[in-house]
C-alpha cells in the first residue's frame, strides 16, 4: 500500500494502464489512507473505495446525493440533486471522488479557520493553518491523504494553501473550466483548479477539467488540450519581477527563497527584469469590494425556504429569513455580505463597485503591458509561511493581506501557478515550512506556464514533505538540485 500511495497520479495512471497495478487496489490504498485523516481535512468520505483514480473534491462542488456544505452551517444536510461539470468531467476521465474536503465557509478565508466544521490543520505542523480557502484540499495532498485534489481560487484560494502546504496549485485562466455546480462566491473571479504533488499531475488534471460547457456561458475552455509538461531549461524566456509586488511585508525567509528561485531561473537561462505593475498594489482594495459585492448577491439565495437549514421561527417570512441567515452564516461571511451590500447600495455604487471595476481594468492593463515584453510575471505566492491557528483571526485586514500577491492575477483573469520552492523558518522560530513561488502567464497561456513551471520544479527538486507523509516527492530520476531538505 505504501508503495501505491507513493506514486504520483501520472505514474500510477501509467502503471494501471500497463497492467502493473490494479485500479481497484490503487483506489483501495487511497481509501484507506484517507481514512486516517487526523487533520480534519475531510468533511465527508464515501463508505467504499472510489471507482477510479481517487481525487479529493473541495466541498464547494455539488455532487448528486453527496452532502455538500461549502463549509457552512447553512447548507448542513444539503444533498445536491445534480453534479458539478468539473466533477462529471473528472469522472469521464476515469477519476472518482475520494472525499469532500474542508474549506473556509463559502471560500471566504485564507486559513480554513472560517469553516463551520473547524479548521483543517497543516500537515507540516498541526498547530498551523493549511491556508485557504481550499485548505482541506491542500492538506490532504500534502499530508498523503489523497493523490490529488481540486479546489477553487477566487483571490488565491488554490495558490496560497498550496504554498503553505508545499504542493503545486494551479489557478487556470478565467473561463478555462466550467463553474457549473461550483458554489459561487464571487462569480467573476471564481475558478476551479487542481492541487497536486507536482506540475505533471497539475497538467493531467487540467486536461480532464478544462473545456467549454454549455451550462456555463462564461466558460471557453483552452485553445488546445494540455500535454504533459516537458522543458529542461528556461532559455529565451523573459520573467518580469514587479517591484510593486515584492517590496513590503514579506517575511525574510520567504524573501530568501524567492530570491534563490530567481537566481535559479537565471541559471536555467531565463532572463529577469523588473517590470512595473503600477496598479497591482491596489488589487486587495478592489478585490475586497468586488468579491463581497458579488458574494452578497450570490449568497442571498440561502434563505431557508427550499433547502439547507431553516431556523425555528414563529414570525413571518422575513423573520424566518433573518434568523436562518443569522444562525446559518459565520462571522466572516456576514462581514463580507455587509461590505458587499454596502458597496452596491444606491448612492455608493459608483464610489465603490464602479471604482473597483476601474481598478480591475487598470490591473488587467498592467499585465497586458507586461506580457507585451515578458513571458511571465513572478512573485512569492504568499508573504508568509503557514501561520499559527488563531494568529490572524482577530485582524481581518492582516488576513486579507495574505492574498496580496495572488489577487491581481485573479482580477486580471490570467493563469497562475504556485510551486514549492523551498523551506523557510517562520518568524517566531521553529521547524522550517514550505514557501511557494508564483508564476503568472497571459490568458490561455497554460501550456507555456506548465512547461516553465516544470523546468523550474525539476531544477528546484523540492523533496521535503511533512513527517510521516507516505510518499516521495519525486521519482528521483530527474533531480538536479536540492532546493528543500529533510522532513519539515
Amino acid at each position, binding site marked *: 500500500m505504501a508503495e501505491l500511495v507513493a506514486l504520483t497520479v501520472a505514474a500510477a495512471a501509467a502503471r494501471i494502464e500497463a497492467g502493473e497495478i490494479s485500479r481497484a487496489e490503487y483506489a483501495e490504498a487511497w481509501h484507506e489512507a484517507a481514512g486516517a485523516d487526523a487533520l480534519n481535512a475531510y468533511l465527508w468520505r464515501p463508505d467504499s473505495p472510489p471507482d477510479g483514480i481517487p481525487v479529493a473534491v473541495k466541498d464547494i462542488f455539488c455532487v448528486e446525493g453527496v452532502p455538500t456544505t461549502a463549509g457552512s452551517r447553512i447548507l448542513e444536510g444539503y444533498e445536491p440533486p445534480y453534479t458539478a461539470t468539473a466533477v462529471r468531467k473528472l469522472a469521464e476521465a476515469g477519476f472518482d471522488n475520494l472525499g469532500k474536503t474542508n474549506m473556509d465557509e463559502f471560500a471566504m478565508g485564507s486559513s480554513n479557520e472560517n469553516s463551520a466544521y473547524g479548521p483543517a490543520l497543516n500537515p507540516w505542523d498541526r498547530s498551523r493553518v493549511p491556508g485557504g480557502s481550499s485548505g482541506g484540499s491542500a492538506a490532504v495532498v500534502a499530508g498523503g491523504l489523497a493523490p490529488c485534489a481540486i479546489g477553487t481560487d477566487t483571490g488565491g484560494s488554490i495558490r496560497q494553501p498550496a504554498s503553505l502546504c508545499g504542493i503545486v496549485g494551479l489557478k487556470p485562466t478565467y473561463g478555462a473550466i466550467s463553474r457549473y455546480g461550483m458554489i459561487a462566491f464571487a462569480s467573476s473571479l471564481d475558478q476551479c483548479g487542481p492541487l497536486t504533488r507536482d506540475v505533471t499531475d497539475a497538467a493531467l488534471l487540467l486536461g480532464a477539467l478544462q473545456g467549454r460547457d454549455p451550462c456555463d456561458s462564461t466558460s471557453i475552455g483552452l485553445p488546445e488540450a494540455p500535454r504533459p509538461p516537458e522543458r529542461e531549461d528556461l532559455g529565451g524566456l523573459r520573467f518580469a519581477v514587479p517591484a510593486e509586488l515584492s517590496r513590503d511585508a514579506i517575511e525574510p525567509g520567504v524573501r530568501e527563497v524567492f530570491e534563490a528561485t530567481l537566481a535559479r531561473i537565471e541559471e536555467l537561462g531565463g532572463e529577469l527584469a523588473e517590470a512595473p505593475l503600477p496598479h497591482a498594489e491596489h488589487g486587495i482594495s478592489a478585490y475586497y469590494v468586488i468579491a463581497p459585492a458579488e458574494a452578497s448577491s450570490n449568497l442571498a*439565495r440561502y434563505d431557508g425556504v427550499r433547502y439547507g437549514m431553516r431556523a425555528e421561527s414563529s414570525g413571518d417570512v422575513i423573520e424566518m429569513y433573518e434568523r436562518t441567515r443569522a444562525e446559518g452564516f459565520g462571522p466572516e461571511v456576514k462581514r463580507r455580505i455587509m461590505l458587499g451590500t454596502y458597496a452596491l447600495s444606491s448612492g455608493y455604487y459608483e464610489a465603490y463597485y464602479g471604482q473597483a471595476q476601474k481598478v480591475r481594468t487598470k490591473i488587467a492593463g498592467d499585465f497586458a503591458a507586461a506580457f507585451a515584453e515578458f513571458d511571465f510575471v513572478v512573485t512569492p505566492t504568499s508573504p508568509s509561511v503557514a501561520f499559527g491557528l488563531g494568529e490572524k483571526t482577530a485582524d481581518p485586514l492582516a488576513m486579507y493581506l495574505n492574498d496580496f500577491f495572488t489577487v491581481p492575477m485573479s482580477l486580471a483573469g490570467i493563469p497562475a501557478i504556485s510551486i514549492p520552492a523551498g523551506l523557510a523558518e517562520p518568524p517566531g522560530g521553529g521547524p522550517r515550512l514550505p514557501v511557494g513561488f508564483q508564476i503568472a502567464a497571459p490568458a490561455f497561456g497554460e501550456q507555456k506556464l506548465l512547461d516553465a513551471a516544470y523546468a523550474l520544479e525539476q531544477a528546484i527538486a523540492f523533496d521535503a514533505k511533512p513527517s510521516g507523509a507516505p510518499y516521495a516527492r519525486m521519482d528521483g530520476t530527474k533531480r538536479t538540485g536540492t532546493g528543500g531538505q529533510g522532513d519539515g
Partner: protein
Amino acid sequence: MAELEAVIGLEIHVQLATRTKMFCGCELSFGEEPNVHTCPVCLAHPGVLPVVNEQAIRYALQIAAALECEVAARSIFHRKNYFYPDSPKAYQISQYDIPIAGAGRLGDVRIHRAHLEEDAAKMIHVGESGRIHGSGASLVDFNRGGTPLVEIVTEPDLRGADEAAAWARLLRETVRQLEVSDVNMEEGSLRVDANVSVRPAGSEGLGTKTELKNMNSFRFLERGIEAELARQREIVESGGAVVQETLHFHPEDGTLHPLRSKEEAHDYRYFPEPDLVPIAPSEEMLREARESLPELPAARAARYEGMGLAEDVAALLAADPPTAEYFERTAGAAAGVEPRVVANWVTGELAAALRQGGGEAGAAESRVEPAALAALVTMAAEKKVSHGSAKQVLATMVAEGGDPGEIVEREGLGQMSSDSGELEAIVAAAVESNPEAVEQIRAGNGKAIGAIVGAVMKETKGRADGGEVNRLIREQLGL
C-alpha cells in the same frame, strides 16, 4: 386654476411563448400542477448558472423591430436584488442601463425601451388578506418562475384613460400578430401597469406619479386610470400634493390601495450579472427579425384608410388579420365596388349573419367564399338585388354556402324592376289602400310615405329597391 391634464405612461410585461424558460431547459406551462416544471437552475440551487434562451432573444428582437426600436449592439444583463419567496435566487436577472431595445414608437406613442428579463414564481397566500401580510401561510409555485419576459416601457405620451386602453389594445394586437406571446391578460401573459400623473394643461413638467398595478383587463386598466386621475385631480385642486407610491387595483370594487411600504421600499442594488456574457445580435438575427414581421395593425389600418375605409372599420379589420385578408380577397374579386362598401359588408352584414348563425367562426372560416360574397356585393351595388334581399341571400350562404346568383334565382329574390310594370301595379295598390297616409303626405308630412313604402316592401318581400319605390309613389301622387 388651469385645467389639469392627464399624463400617462405604460409598462407592459409580455410573457414570451418560447418552449422553455429564460435561463434553463424547463418547459413553460400554464395551469399545471404546481412545481412540476422546475430544475436546480430555476429553483436556485447552490452552484447553478443561467444560460440565455436564444429563442427569447429572437422574439425580443421581433418585438423591437415591430416597435421600431433601436437595437443595442451589445446589451447586458443586471441582477436586481430583493428578498421575496417568489424570487428563489433573491435576485431577478433583468436588464438595466443597456437594454436590448432602446427608443421606438408604436402609433402616436414613443417607446422608451424594451428589455428582457425573467418572470417571478407565483405566490398563493392562504387566508383572507390575499397578500403575504396577514396570511396564515404562503405557497410558492415555481412553474412560472423563469418564464421569459419582455418589458416594454412607453414615454408618458398618453393623455387619457380611454386613450391608454386603446393604445394598450393596439400593442396587444401588434404583439399577438408577431406570434411571440399568448398576450392573455387574464392568464397574466400580458400585464399592463400604468404610471399616472396630472399637470396644468399646457405645462411641460411632470407631476408626481403613482404606479398602478394588477389591472388584468383593458376595462380594469381604463377604470383604474380613471379612478386614479380623479383622485389626483381632487388632491391637486384642493391644494394638496400627490405622494409617489404604488397602488394596487381591486377589481371587486374598482378601488386602488397602496401596497404596504415594507413590500415596496427596495434598494435593488443593481450590478452587472457576472454569470452571463453580453447579448450581441448578429446581422443575420437582426435581418431575420425584421423580415419575419407581418404587416402590423397600425400599418394595415393606415393602408385601409388610404383605400377609403372609415377609421373604425380599418382598425377593426387590422386587429383581425384573417378577416382582413378575407376582406382583401373579397374586395379584389368585387372590382366594380368601392372597398369601403365591401369592408362594410364584411364587418357589418356578414359579421351579423355569422353571429346570428350562432357559429364561432369568423369570415375566413365560414362557408361564404370571398368570391361569392364579392358576387353578392356586386349584385347589390348594381341593384340587381335589393339590400334586404341580399341580406336574406347572405343568411342562406352562411348556412349552406353556395353561389348568390343561384340562390337569388332559386328563391325568386331578384330585384323587381319598374320596367316590367309589376312594381307599378303593386305601388298603385298600396297607394289605394293607404288613403290616410296619402292625405298626410299631401298635407306636407313627408315622413308619412314610409307607411306606403312598407306596404310595398311587404308585398314584394323586400325585392324592390327602396329608392325606386319612393320615386314611383311620388310619381303616382303627382308630387
